[in-house]
């Protein structure tokens, strides 16, 4: 008698991915890379603050006109916002669900266990929570201007300087950017591993790129509040 072949497998690609730990990690890796690509562009744009209010505000205006005349004004901006918001939500929900599962899978601790993983690896979860809270604050401060002391629409340079002139805002920003650097240091290499791009030959290269990206983004983002605090940007 021939054995029956298993045929009851689910036909949905997305469903298969989301249900398995490996697939859910692939979703996290992909959304993480989307956010990382955005951050590189965001950091480059930020550095225009060192060339004066004219150039920075012009850049802020240009962002709203990308894609014209094919796209209507601000359409590109809104497409980017929707993609980024979806990425943040998927990344966060997947991280939450996987973390819950991971904690349940190791209910008992060892008497004497020294963590061998790096600081960046061990702070991914709480670092991610800090980054999530920071994103909320950052949007309220510099996008919707809800908590901005200047709050003049169309004048991002002045809003930015007014915000960073409050030392505690700069301090939170700096802490969040250090968390970002650590998150990328482990996250980029981890994404390469999760998406199956890693191999013994490329392992070292991915770690170097991860560290390079982490350092570049952290320093690039930190330059702005430090510029305001030291009076270089005013």
């Amino acid at each position, binding site marked *: 008698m021939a054995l029956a072949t*298993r*045929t009851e*497998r*689910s*036909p949905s*690609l997305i469903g*298969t*991915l989301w*249900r*398995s*730990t*490996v*697939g*859910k*990690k*692939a979703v996290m890796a992909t959304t993480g890379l989307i956010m990382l690509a955005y951050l590189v562009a965001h950091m480059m744009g930020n550095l225009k603050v060192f060339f004066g209010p004219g150039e920075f505000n012009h850049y802020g205006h240009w962002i709203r006109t990308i894609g014209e005349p094919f796209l209507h004004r601000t359409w590109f901006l809104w497409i980017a916002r929707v993609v980024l918001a979806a990425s943040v939500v998927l990344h966060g929900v997947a991280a939450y669900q*996987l973390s819950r*599962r*991971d*904690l*349940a*899978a*190791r*209910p*008992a*601790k*060892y*008497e*004497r*266990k*020294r*963590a*061998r*993983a790096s600081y960046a*690896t*061990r702070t*991914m979860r709480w670092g991610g929570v800090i980054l999530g809270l920071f994103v909320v604050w950052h949007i309220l401060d510099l996008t919707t201007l809800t908590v901005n002391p200047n709050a003049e629409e169309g004048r991002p340079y002045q809003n930015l300087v007014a915000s960073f002139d409050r030392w505690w805002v700069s301090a939170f920003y700096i802490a969040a950017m250090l968390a970002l650097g650590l998150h990328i240091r*482990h996250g980029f*290499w*981890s994404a*390469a*591993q*999760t*998406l*199956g*791009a*890693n*191999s*013994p030959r490329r*392992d070292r290269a991915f770690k170097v790129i991860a560290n390079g990206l982490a350092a570049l983004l952290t320093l690039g983002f930190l330059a702005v509040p430090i510029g305001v605090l030291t009076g270089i940007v005013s």
Partner: protein
Amino acid sequence: MNLTLRIWRQRDAGSAGAMTTYEVKGISEDMSFLEMLDHLNEELILAGDEPVAFDHDCREGICGACGMVINGAAHGPERTTTCQLHMRHFSDGDTIDVEPWRAAAFPVVKDLVVDRSAFDRIIGAGGYVSAPTGSAPDAHATPVPKPAADLAFEHAECIGCGACVAACPNGSAMLFTSAKVVHLNVLPQGAPERESRVLDMVDTMDAQGFGGCTNTGECATACPKGIPLTAIGRMNREYLRATVKGRG
């Protein structure tokens, strides 16, 4: 040498356990860790106490039966199995903590013995190849490229001891499962089940209650057979490829 041992004692799966302290004297540095526990057990039996239960079989480092967490490290301070760990790696007067593998998918049976049948269920889901069982095949009917043979062998070294799960902060079985998947998926003999193997084994791994991988690398550091962390990357690639290619 004289040692203080703090060993996890648990009567059975349903009971609560606790660390219990024992003093052992006159331990030779040439004893293996298991021989040291045998020595303790002989003394416990003579004293009318229950001996410490632990898994062991070949005591040659190849069967994967033994395994315990020694001072917070799976299989102890050396990169080998517990049976091949010698007491010369400890000093006179040391206090040594001995605990069972800790993972939701590996429930404690008694003392240091855990139920690792979850691994058997992962193997049952795809850790095999289809082979004709009639007459013996011709010697070179299936050519295997040398790099594929080497890669398969590197991953076939896994003895299924469970140290990766014990070391992982998430109780994840990704290193074990990936070693098995890579071992068979790179060989032509494993090609017919290449997609179903990785999908079914990952499904079963998840269903057994193991955690997910966060790429901490603790598993590969603890592995007595040196299964590389990149095995997990290879399995992830196989999984994504199988998902896209069609699940069957």
